[in-house]
């Protein structure tokens, strides 16, 4: 239930949660266990696919938001040096129970802005709450489409302008495609993982933090090119290295 009152309350609550979670993270840092990390970059070889421009003329409001910088598809975003953005890196093997089951208590936001999803790829821990918010003055419907039988149940809800955030979570690890039917071009991802994760920046670099020393399998997921894995051994102190390279189709 979200009246304006509970809405305010939710906001305050969220703030509190953020504070707490911050302290929790600090707590994590001091514990020697999570001191290790993996860094690296994800690159694309071959010619990057052409990202078509998006014509939003159907909804004048959306079109106006992109009057100056036309929107483009975000399936594959390649930096100047071939680095791929929005690649998700997470641990598929080697995590001890504690790290695997630890669920961050902060609530990442999945915003609808200028009739696009920000971020295009939202990574959450299984069971971690996240918020779907809208900054647009047009009504969107949010329609995640998990594959049947994964344990995640799909839903389809509208958010009129100024509607309170939708706070929810996903039960099982899965890469879930999210779309808006009212604005068919709107497309994003909810990537649900277990344990620590990282997302590559504009130049394809990432750092996977909070890992105790040990041997791990790191998986890189890209929406068009699927997954790649590497075995990495993390020692205390010095960050381990893992670079990935996807081949353009």
């Amino acid at each position: 239930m979200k009246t304006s009152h509970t809405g305010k309350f939710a906001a305050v609550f969220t703030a509190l949660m953020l504070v707490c979670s911050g302290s929790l993270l600090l707590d994590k840092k001091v514990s020697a266990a999570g001191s290790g990390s993996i860094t690296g970059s994800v690159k694309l070889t071959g010619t990057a696919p052409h990202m078509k421009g998006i014509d939003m003329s159907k909804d004048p409001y959306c079109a106006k938001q992109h009057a100056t910088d036309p929107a483009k598809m975000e399936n594959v975003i390649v930096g100047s040096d071939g680095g791929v953005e929005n690649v998700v890196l997470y641990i598929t093997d080697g995590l001890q129970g504690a790290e695997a089951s630890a669920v961050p208590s902060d609530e990442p936001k999945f915003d609808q802005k200028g009739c696009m999803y920000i971020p295009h790829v939202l990574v959450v821990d299984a069971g971690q709450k996240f918020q779907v918010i809208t900054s647009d003055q047009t009504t969107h419907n949010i329609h995640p489409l998990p594959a049947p039988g994964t344990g995640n149940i799909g839903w389809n809800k509208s958010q009129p302008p100024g509607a309170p955030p939708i706070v929810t979570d996903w039960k099982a690890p899965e890469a879930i495609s999210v779309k808006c039917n009212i604005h068919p071009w709107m497309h994003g991802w909810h990537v649900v993982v277990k344990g620590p994760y990282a997302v590559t920046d504009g130049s394809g670099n990432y750092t996977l933090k909070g890992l105790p020393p040990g041997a791990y399998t790191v998986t890189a997921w890209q929406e068009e090119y699927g997954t790649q894995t590497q075995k990495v051994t993390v020692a205390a102190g010095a960050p381990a290295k893992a670079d990935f390279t996807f081949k353009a189709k």
Partner: protein
Amino acid sequence: MAKFFAVTIIVISILSAIPIVRHTWWMAQDISTHGQPIDDQMSETMAEAGISFLASQILLAVFIWMFSNSKPSDKVRNFPGGATTMVLGAFLLVGTEVLALGAFGAKAWANVYFTPPAANAIPIQVQAGQFAFYFRYPGPDGSFGPIHPNLLSEANQNFFGIDADHDPDSKDDIVTAEMAIPVNREIHLLMHSKDLGHSFFVPELRVQQDFVPGLDLSMHFTATKIGRYEIVCTQLCGLGHYNMKAYLSVMSQEDYDNWLKKQAALQ
């Protein structure tokens, strides 16, 4: 009470008629070559319906006024001619009236639906889906590639399930979110729905046609006035129905050609 009621009926009927007569709210201006008969038919019907409406309402009011305060001594009288008059009246007046309407209407309908598109009509394919229209122009080769349902993907902006790598016809197809047509050129619109029932309605163009999944229909029309109009969906298709629309730009021939070039570049 009764007299007041009679007056109320008359006042309401006249007030209801005024906006119609003054065209306060009326059909958008016609920009099609086939629209005139429809508009004539509309005014024709409006006149006859209006007369029947006012006549019978006023008659009702007058009778209420006349016969509501009769004295006990009054005798009940029959309407001259009785029921026979009524039946004849219904058959002769209304019957002939509506059948005449029907006949004229049939002609208006026929010249929309029973005429084949001209050979030089520009083929444009429209894809309806929750909740947007997308349009495909055949490009220089003048022919559309096939639609591969399994390739249909809004996420990849492949709204027609085009496989340009394997279908030569698809290579030069142009897909747009807005419909542009040259003025005074006949358009042959090929309608396809990828999911549910939708409808293609442009009031100014005097066209409305449902999309039927699994049944590809087509329409043809000519726009006679440059401008930007709206295409709306009139068939309930889900939560976004109210926002399922696209713009229709009627352009001069050269504007159209340039526009098409620009769109081709964007593919």
